[in-house]
């Protein structure tokens, strides 16, 4: 990346300190000043350092970071205790080893991660100097706030720059934000007020740096004139300039203040549920430790009291005195803490991190979660909540782009109350031809031209020609679609690497190019355009639309299909070629951009000929209908008709948009003043802007409405079905219309006919009182359903406004109660905030594990509110992915992610944690039991080195491998039997009881491991470490074989690690015993292992101990496996069968399940009776659209419902399109 900074020496000086809203002035006048006199010196430089450490500061800073963890302080404190001679249990230096190893390993991990960040910084900050024009090449890091920077085409923007000049005559600069948010469509930026850098003497005042990529506010102040600007004038660091030869501007934010850096968060740290539960268990261990130490201390005092005089083996202090027994007790308490510290598993946290890294590796490697089309793997963005995937109880899903493709297809439209279908393989261009028959005849001949079949085209032309024209003009103009020409396209693709990069994301982005027209309105589009290009004299350039939303792209393409081609869009004007071939160039006065509160957008243009100021508005019917002018009865009729059509569209699952037009006669300029004031505001800017927009959008005249189809993604019904069977509540929260949403919900099997009733809280309830009554009424009805059978369930469809009321504090309880009774929840017309509030409410009130999945910016709140956020990298950019913990590319991947990976990860981690606790308790208790035979003096009969090795080498790899690789049930069977997932939801893998059973087992096993050798060698001439050797060995075997019992599937890796651990134990122990004569002074394990291994008794003791220690667990497993086999065990049995047999069994299993499930439906007739007794404001509908519901394979998006087609044009149903020619 190259960057030019213009330098221009100048001799004035007037340094000022920046006031609280950042003020930026040009740096040029201060070029020769010393740094401390620079006016902009207080702002961050452009050097970016995302790595936390430097080579020198690594050690101190990393250590500080690590000691923020309580556990590390605890272990260091214990190691420090060892340095007190009265208290120490081990060699102080040696006791430091474990904590040092842990700290070192963590430091290495941190250093590695930091190094990777460093590498990416270095790439960003180094550039090759080159001089050109009046600008001087600078390195990125030398750029400062207030500098003028020129960026050339295809350069990466080095800082956040306020655009002041662009090479484009219109002052437009295009940039690609793929680096920032992954969106590949070009974003337009424009110059608000052109300036020459040399004479720039204005002050830029902007808001404080924040991370909102789509928002920026500030103004330029020059001679008391304020010029407001927003995000549309800001070039963002990290983006690439495209289609613009050069753009220059003043740096307003640099380095870490830039929006991209503020957005560049580290992987989010979420604490998983298992982990927080585990922390409680750690506290249990602390309590256990405390008790054991107390026993040790009290025991020591009692033991001391048994002696009437000082025995020979008591060692007096250096001054010759004996320690008083109570003081000795306190000392022993501390010694015991040191001795038994391992009961708090020191390496558990590290092991968990390693295990999760392994799990993440396997999840991302899954080929089934790979999307070939987008060349995208599953991404795990949060590294530490893999196991939460196995405990999900509620899934909150977005609809558009998540359940559906979000590839919009223009389907139908209604113009002035008349409805027209738009067939995909349209028959002829008759309609357009008739409409503008005096125009281009080639259009009429083109058979492939998509068309609106119309019965009496001529008639309509006569009456409504102008309105139709306006409608399509609105379609073409009223949007923010950017047109890029063929040449521009070539420019982008110039760089070979760029081209490959570009090819891949194209299909995933919302760029709808001419070549990628499959999903767009007209199949014959491309060919048609080609013909047209050939025949047209004007020789229109290849057009290429870049839309921020797929809806807009679909609309523009639809308009183009009917001859209204959007040719160019600049901030100041927009050009449309009419079917007649004439090009109209409107002057754009203002664009009132879309926001979710208004749910509409408008464009204000001046007609080239009539000079009328015209406002075109498009938006959701809810945002439009109430703002129509109610003057003429004719328009009311049209509005009613249109509303009827809209309802039909919605029933069909189409997305609807209304288009209006208004001719602004006067007071536009009054409004403009207000508008500019709002744009320049810093406080309450959004509110003011919204208000001015709303002021303008009144008294609209309805032109018509469109229905856009959004196809369901593949396998969505199956996935939802599977999630259901897995006991997961699926809730769909969408911004779409109620009818559209209900329809999609039926087609994706969220709602189905087994649902007895479906209480719809209608938008009728506008007041809280009504809502409250309705809620209590509904709740009172619920038990009626429940009496049938527990499984009989109710679907809840609720709309945004009602939802808003229900989310009020006093209705929350009822709402939550209602939700628990419903099998399906569908919320329509919700705002992003409501989505996240629903998630938060259910999550906090029910204490359930929630997952939110979505693809767009409007799902970000919800994704962040849920325990697990899943982003779909779809058509609407990467914002959802950026906010998510896991990113997938299709909704169907959720099935394998949850049912297989979630299940595995949860079980693996839960088992590993339990095992870890068990392991430490089992081992440490050996030492504890020994205290009863050494006067509670804190002696260890195992050399401390062995204890360190034991934890670090001999028994560390197997549990980690267990946590990463164990597999109870194979993926195939898990996918076939989703109900196996339920165990994780109820924390079946990791209960408090499981923990205590494991601890009890650990106590038992340690007793066995201690007392079998004890009784064997009791009274003999055995020495301390020789006694410790069989205990240590037996304990190792017990711990390893215990894991062997728990391991569910043995792959070659398992064998290698398990056998390897045992081999390593013997090799290391033998080597250590042979080499260490007096290297570890007070303890002398020299030759003990060899001595023991030459004694047959050793083996006999070890075998007996291991068998006795594991006998209860093994027997219980066997008994449980036979007497009360779990579903998982049955599934494993099925897993072990030969394939043919397995299928048979799986079928049987399912049949059995279906039998259970179908039982309630047998009595559904009873349910119908209940459904008739309703409160009036509440509709419990048996089946809202029988026609749709009864054809099982129906996907409304593909086949418009028969009723709809009949009402319009019975003979022109899509598959009978040919007949229309006969007419």
């Amino acid at each position, binding site marked *: 990346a190259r960057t030019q900074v213009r330098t221009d020496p100048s001799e004035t000086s007037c340094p000022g300190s920046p006031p609280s809203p950042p003020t930026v002035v040009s740096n040029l006048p201060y070029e020769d000043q010393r740094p401390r006199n620079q006016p902009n010196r207080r702002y961050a430089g452009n050097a970016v350092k995302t790595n936390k450490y430097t080579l020198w500061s690594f050690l101190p800073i990393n250590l500080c970071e690590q000691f923020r963890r309580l556990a590390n302080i605890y272990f260091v404190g214990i190691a420090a205790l060892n340095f007190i001679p009265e208290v120490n249990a081990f060699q102080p230096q040696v006791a430091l080893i474990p904590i040092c190893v842990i700290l070192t390993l963590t430091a290495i991990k941190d250093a590695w991660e930091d190094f990777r960040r460093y590498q990416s910084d270095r790439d960003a900050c180094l550039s090759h100097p080159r001089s050109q024009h009046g600008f001087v090449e600078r390195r990125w890091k030398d750029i400062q706030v207030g500098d003028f920077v020129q960026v050339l085409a295809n350069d990466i923007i080095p800082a956040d720059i306020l655009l002041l000049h662009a090479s484009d005559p219109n002052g437009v600069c295009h940039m690609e934000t793929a680096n920032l948010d992954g969106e590949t469509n070009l974003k337009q930026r424009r110059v608000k007020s052109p300036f020459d850098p040399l004479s720039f003497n204005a002050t830029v005042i902007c808001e404080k740096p924040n991370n909102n990529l789509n928002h920026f506010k500030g103004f330029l102040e020059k001679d008391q004139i304020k010029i407001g600007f927003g995000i549309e004038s800001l070039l963002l660091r990290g983006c690439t300039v495209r289609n613009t030869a050069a753009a220059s501007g003043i740096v307003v934010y640099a380095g870490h203040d830039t929006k991209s850096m503020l957005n*560049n968060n580290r992987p989010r740290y979420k604490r998983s549920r298992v982990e927080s539960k585990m922390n409680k268990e750690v506290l249990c261990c602390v309590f256990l430790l405390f008790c054991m130490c107390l026993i040790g201390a009290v025991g020591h005092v009692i033991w001391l009291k048994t002696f009437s005089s000082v025995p020979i083996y008591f060692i007096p202090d250096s001054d010759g005195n004996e320690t008083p027994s109570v003081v000795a007790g306190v000392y022993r308490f501390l010694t015991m803490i040191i001795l038994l510290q391992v009961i708090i598993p020191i390496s558990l946290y590290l092991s968990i991190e390693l295990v999760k890294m392994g799990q993440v590796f396997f999840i991302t490697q899954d080929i089934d979660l790979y999307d070939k089309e987008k060349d995208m793997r599953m991404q795990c963005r949060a590294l530490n909540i893999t196991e939460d995937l196995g405990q999900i109880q509620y899934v909150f899903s977005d609809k558009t782009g998540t359940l559906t493709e979000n590839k919009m297809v223009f389907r139908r439209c209604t113009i002035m109350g008349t409805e027209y279908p738009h067939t995909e393989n349209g028959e002829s261009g008759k309609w357009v031809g008739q409409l503008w028959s005096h125009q281009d005849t080639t259009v009429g001949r083109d058979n492939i031209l998509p068309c609106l079949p119309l019965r009496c085209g001529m008639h309509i032309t006569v009456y409504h020609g102008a309105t139709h024209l306006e409608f399509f003009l609105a379609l073409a103009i009223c949007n923010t679609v950017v047109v890029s020409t063929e040449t521009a396209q070539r420019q982008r693709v110039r760089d070979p690497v*760029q081209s490959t990069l570009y090819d891949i994301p194209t299909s995933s982005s919302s760029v709808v190019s001419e070549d990628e027209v499959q999903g767009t309105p007209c199949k014959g589009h491309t060919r048609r355009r080609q013909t047209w290009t050939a025949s047209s004299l004007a020789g229109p350039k290849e057009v290429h639309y870049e839309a921020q939303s797929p809806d807009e792209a679909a609309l523009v393409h639809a308009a183009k299909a009917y001859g209204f081609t959007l040719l160019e869009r600049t901030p100041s004007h927009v050009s449309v070629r009419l079917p007649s071939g004439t090009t109209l160039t409107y002057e754009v006065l203002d664009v009132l951009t879309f926001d979710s509160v208004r749910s509409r957008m408008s464009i204000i243009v001046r007609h080239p000929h009539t000079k009328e100021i015209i406002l075109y508005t498009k938006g959701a019917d809810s945002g439009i209908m109430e703002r129509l002018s109610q003057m003429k009865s004719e328009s009311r009729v049209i509005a009613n008709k249109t509303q009827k059509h809209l309802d039909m569209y919605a029933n069909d699952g189409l997305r609807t948009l209304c288009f209006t037009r208004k001719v602004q006669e006067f007071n536009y300029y009054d409004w403009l003043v207000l508008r500019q004031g709002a744009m320049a505001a810093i406080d309450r800017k959004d509110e003011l802007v919204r208000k001015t927009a709303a002021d303008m959008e009144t008294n609209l005249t309805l032109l018509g409405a469109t229905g856009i189809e959004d196809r369901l993604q593949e396998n969505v019904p199956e996935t939802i079905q599977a999630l259901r069977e897995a006991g997961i509540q699926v809730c769909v929260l969408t911004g779409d219309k109620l009818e559209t949403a209900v329809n999609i919900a039926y087609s994706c099997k969220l709602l189905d006919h087994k649902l007895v009733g479906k209480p719809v809280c209608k938008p009728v309830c506008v007041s809280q009182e009504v809502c409250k009554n309705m809620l209590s009424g509904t709740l009172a009805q619920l038990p009626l359903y429940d009496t049938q059978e527990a499984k009989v369930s109710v679907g809840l469809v609720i709309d945004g406004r009602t939802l808003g009321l229900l989310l009020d504090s006093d209705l929350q309880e009822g709402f939550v109660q209602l939700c628990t009774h419903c099998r399906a929840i569908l919320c329509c017309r919700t705002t992003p905030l409501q989505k996240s509030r629903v998630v938060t409410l259910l999550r906090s009130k029910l204490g359930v594990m929630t997952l939110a999945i979505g693809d767009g910016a409007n799902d970000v709140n919800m994704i962040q509110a849920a325990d697990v956020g899943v982003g779909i990298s779809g058509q609407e950019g990467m914002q959802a992915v950026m906010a998510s913990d896991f990113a997938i590319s299709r909704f169907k991947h959720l099935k394998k992610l949850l049912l297989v990976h979630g299940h595995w990860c949860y079980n693996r981690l839960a088992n590993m944690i339990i095992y870890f606790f068990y392991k430490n308790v089992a081992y440490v208790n050996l030492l504890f039991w020994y205290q009863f035979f050494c006067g509670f003096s804190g002696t260890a009969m195992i050399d401390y080195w062995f204890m360190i090795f034991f934890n670090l080498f001999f028994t560390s790899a197997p549990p980690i491998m267990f946590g990463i690789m164990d597999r109870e049930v194979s993926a195939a069977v898990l996918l076939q039997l989703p109900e196996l997932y339920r165990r994780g939801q109820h924390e079946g893998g990791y209960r408090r009881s499981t923990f205590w059973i494991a601890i009890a087992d650990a106590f038992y096993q340690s007793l066995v491991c201690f007392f079998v050798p004890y*009784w064997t060698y009791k009274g003999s001439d055995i020495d*301390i470490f020789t006694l410790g050797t069989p205990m240590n060995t037996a304990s190792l075997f017990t711990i390893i074989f215990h894991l062997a019992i728990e391991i569910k599937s043995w792959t070659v890796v398992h064998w290698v690690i398990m056998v390897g651990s045992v081999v390593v134990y013997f090799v290391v122990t033998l080597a250590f015993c042979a080499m260490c004569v007096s290297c570890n002074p007070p303890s002398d394990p020299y030759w003990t292992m060899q001595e023991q291994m030459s004694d047959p*008794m050793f083996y*006999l003791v070890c075998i007996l101990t291991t068998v006795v220690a594991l006998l209860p667990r093994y*027997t219980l497993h066997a008994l449980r496996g036979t007497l009360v086999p779990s579903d998982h065990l049955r599934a494993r049995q099925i897993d072990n069968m030969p394939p043919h047999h397995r299928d048979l069994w799986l079928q049987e299993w399912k049949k059995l399940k279906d039998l259970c499930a179908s039982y309630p439906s047998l009595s559904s007739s009873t349910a119908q009776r209940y459904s008739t007794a309703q409160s009036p404001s509440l509709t419990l509908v048996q089946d809202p659209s029988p026609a749709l519901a009864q054809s099982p394979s129906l996907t409304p998006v593909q086949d418009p419902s028969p009723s709809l087609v009949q009402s319009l044009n019975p003979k022109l149903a899509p598959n009978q399109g040919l007949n229309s020619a006969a007419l």
Partner: protein
Amino acid sequence: MMASSYNIKEEDGHHSGSSGPGGNAVRTKKPDNTAFKQQRLPAWQPIITAGTVLPAFFIIGLIFIPIGIGLYVTSNNIKEFEIDYTGIDISSPCFNCSQSYSWNTTTSCTCSIPFSLDQPFESNVFMYYGLSNFYQNHRRYVKSRDDSQLNGNLDSLKAPSKECEPYRINENMPIAPCGAIANSMFNDTLDLFYIDPNGTRTPIPLMKTGIAWWTDKHVKFRNPGGSSSNLTAVFYGTTKPLSWPKPVYELDTDPENNGFVNEDLIVWMRTAALPTFRKLYRIIQKKNSLTPTLPRGNYTLDIVYNYPVRSFDGRKRMILSTISWMGGKNPFLGIAYISVGSVCFFLGVVLLFIHHKYGNRNNSSDIPN
């Protein structure tokens, strides 16, 4: 991890080939379809049910019971004789000696205890002394030694480890061997006499060597100055432990068994694991195959009673024992093997029953064939 931070490199055109995780047209991000990465490695999936574990239980039972019987018989064949000579009882010959608390009595107290063996001891007989309630495993006691000094390190000889405190330096001279363990070394002398039926006392030859581990004697314990025979000179400048009557280089007359390599010292220095322990004192070797090592008859144990045990309520014992491959007499392991074997066998039967009663239920009910 990488996904979270936007990576300029990818878009920049400065592609370094393999380093970029994506964007390369030839290399896709498609994961490798290998058995390992797709977690499809062939696996053995054992299922623990009554049916599958049955054989294990029977096999354990069948193996353990014979082993247990073998161990039990072996243990029973070991002959062991034990005599407590603490002298707590007034009637005991050693009662007078036991009244002394002091370590530094120069006058040694002797007593002799007669005993008789009902059975002859055939093979080599190991003679132990046993102490009770002696916590040689007390943490601070265990540490109170300097292995490096005992290994013949001259520096450590002159400046023993701090661990030896307060038995490190006496009258400004380093103690050799330092530390509480050495200081409290067992110093009774035990002698055995066979009383012929005609009344003559025949001393039984007791081997002083071969009682310590070979590695201890030859590797771990060494006299300072290597094989220098003049131990007096080597130990010059050191002093004897406080409670020892004589310095370390006068422990024995045999130069191979003197100083730090004295086997009595080595045996003592190997601290016992449990408060009641025995330590090998002497070995009575079998003379020939015709006569037993210790024939049936009367014996006398002569004791030079130096070691006070009253301060900790201790007991002193002399133990004679023959030895088998499994060491000394201990019936525990045999009994344990037999009982565990029986329990396993019993559990096997129970599981067999359960398997027959319930095991088939799972397998047949789901599929009505």
